[in-house]
């Protein structure tokens, strides 16, 4: 267990922007109704991609003035600000006019201001230098906007560890609380669909040319999504003192690297096995008390069996007794936002007693033979759960969440 713990990190607010809805309620309803937000990409011409569909956020309005901005920031930052505002509102924390030294932030993204980057390069190719687009692309700019908008003046992190970013950002935020460096931390992951990342994920053949089907024998790859997830993580006594209701506790986490290959999974899911084991050790709990696994579950042929094996390796017999579902077929793989949105689905499972399903599931796979909650949500008592993430570059992360008590 973590050395020198000074506080307990509880979640007191959550917010989402996703292809299934632009707030938590819409997104959760879509998840438990077994719907998918994946549809045609309309923001740019997807011609040339293996798949013209993604979890694109639709009918999204952004009012810069609400966030004290004169002009709209990069689209990904708009998602971040919107989800963060909902999370803070739900936590009943008003944005502060002055910077608050005990209010921290931990942000996560894969590609940052990817659409601003596209604009910048388009300008360069025309012989122009649209420097404003360059500044909006810069990863740190999103942190500047969000910290300014909400009065965050404490410790700040902006992590990019590919698709493990969101889970790692939750972990870093919980460390800030557990080590006593902040009272409240905004943990948020954000990502926007953009041509270059999707081209890369298409030519790597991570993207399916059919449909995303996690754990299904006929799976052929993933589809991507966009949006943001935000958590307000707070020290337990701080939450109690202001009568805020804890929704769940971040019990522990771990993040690591396979140190094996940039894109290929390592042998037998060894890195994921270690990250799940280390997160549970960090939480100081018995692996046999885990009730639910929110999987990374991308729907690629090599990933899903490796993740199933990792869960079996650590949870042993318990792995066969509990649900392990993936929400990626419902939202698309939200990349830097995925870990946070998946943690939110996990907290909802704890609070609502319902586990979101793995949609688009068709055929059992002997290598993915756990209870993957195919297509329909399931009632379940979830007191403790893990959410797993993994990404290009060999990064893995795992967050352990528990019911607030």
């Amino acid at each position, binding site marked *: 267990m973590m050395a020198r713990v000074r506080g307990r990190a509880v979640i007191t607010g959550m917010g989402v922007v996703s292809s299934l809805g632009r707030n938590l309620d819409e997104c959760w309803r879509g998840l438990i109704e077994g719907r998918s937000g994946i549809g045609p990409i309309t923001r740019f011409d997807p011609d040339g*991609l293996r798949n013209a569909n993604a979890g694109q956020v639709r009918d999204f309005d952004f009012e810069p003035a609400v966030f004290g901005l004169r002009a709209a920031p990069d689209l990904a930052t708009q998602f971040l600000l919107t989800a963060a505002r909902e999370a803070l509102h739900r936590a009943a924390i008003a944005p502060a006019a002055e910077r608050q030294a005990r209010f921290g932030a931990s942000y996560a993204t894969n590609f940052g201001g990817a659409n601003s980057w596209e604009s910048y390069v388009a300008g360069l190719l025309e012989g122009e230098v649209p420097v404003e687009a360059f500044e909006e692309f810069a*990863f740190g700019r999103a942190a500047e906007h969000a910290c300014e908008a909400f009065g965050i003046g404490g410790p700040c992190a902006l*992590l990019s560890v590919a698709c493990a970013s969101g889970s790692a950002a939750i972990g870093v935020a919980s460390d800030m609380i557990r080590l006593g460096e902040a009272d409240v931390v905004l943990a948020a992951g954000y990502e926007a669909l953009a041509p270059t990342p999707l081209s890369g994920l298409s030519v790597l053949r991570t993207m399916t040319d059919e449909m995303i089907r996690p754990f299904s024998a006929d799976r052929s790859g993933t589809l991507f999504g966009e949006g943001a997830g935000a958590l307000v993580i707070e020290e337990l006594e701080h939450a109690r003192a202001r009568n805020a209701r804890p929704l769940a506790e971040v019990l522990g986490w771990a993040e690591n690297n396979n140190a094996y*290959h940039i894109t290929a999974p390592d042998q037998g899911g060894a890195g994921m096995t270690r990250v799940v084991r280390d997160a549970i050790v960090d939480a100081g709990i018995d692996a046999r008390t885990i009730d639910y696994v929110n999987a990374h579950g991308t729907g690629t042929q090599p990933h899903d069996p490796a993740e199933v094996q990792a869960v079996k390796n650590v949870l042993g017999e318990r792995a066969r007794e509990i649900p392990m579902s993936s929400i990626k077929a419902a939202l698309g793989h939200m990349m830097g936002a995925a870990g946070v949105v998946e943690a939110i689905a996990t907290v909802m499972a704890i609070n609502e007693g319902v586990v979101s399903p793995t949609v688009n599931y068709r055929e059992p796979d002997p290598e993915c033979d756990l209870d993957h909650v195919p297509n329909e949500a399931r009632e379940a008592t979830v007191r403790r759960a893990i959410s797993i993430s993994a990404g290009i570059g060999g990064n893995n992360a795992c967050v352990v969440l528990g019911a607030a008590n």
Partner: protein
Amino acid sequence: MADQLRIAITGIGALSGLGAGVEPLVEALRAGREPDADLLDADYAPEEFRESPKTYMDPCADHVLAACWLAVRSAGLGWEGAAHPGFDSERMGASIGTAFGTLESMLNMTGRVQQKGLRFGSPMIFTHAFINTPAALIAIEYELQGPNMTHSLGDASSAAALAYAVTMMRAGRADLMLVGGCEALSDPLVAAMDVKVDRLEACPTNDQGRTADGLEARPTNEERQTANDSTANDVLGEGAAILVLETEAHALARGAQPLAELSGASMLAPCRDNAGERALIAAGSERAQVIDAASVCGHTFGASVALSAACCAALAAEADEALAAVSADGSGAAVIERWRA
């Protein structure tokens, strides 16, 4: 802070426009030399600083692997270090800061996509265009199976890398980490900085920040004070720096002689009134003497705090007071002291 786990700096690796190693930086600082535009291209042969052969590499990754190569040797680890008997590679990690990362590869990738179509992205270049690819390559090169993070917060990026490495180690998540930052003077970055300099020169003060036609094309005084614009007039540089950080117990167990102590590091929310003092207080010492490598190797963005920290670590043995590296925007800092056994 007496109850806190002590973190030893046992190796230093630096690469700058002044050359490979921290020594030329320290010599230039002692001599009080000005940064010279002729010195700012990191002119070296990257393949000489690799443990294993590579095919394609982004310059940003080249720089940081060179700094790792130097740091690992400085720490007496060598290539066999990570796989050393008695070492637990699962307890070893990397934490890297970069403001812009692999821009050259990103430009290459996006140029193909925009000019030829989405079908024509290069899978190889794409995998080298992630901002966390340099850190992932370090993990692979040195078999670092523990925590692996990339931090990007503008000029303070490597302060963040140092701060969260300290957090990870104090939380008991790693015993040894390669920590620092890297930046490459890629064409897209230089082009943007050139435009900023031109605008500042064309419009030194303009409180309204608006051109005659009402467009917000020129910086306001307020904007000039933000992190990026405050550096727009600086001589630009590139490079990387890596410190080998070890818990005291780990360093002593392998018989390593600590070069200095990383007594604290902090990363605060980017803020226009960050003067640096708050970050220094958060890092544990407001009275530390600030060392700024940018004064001799140019402004290196996300690598700047790491390069300054490398100089602090090299100078700490003969310094009576604590030394500090502070980001140009004042939001991040690291405090480094002489190692006291």
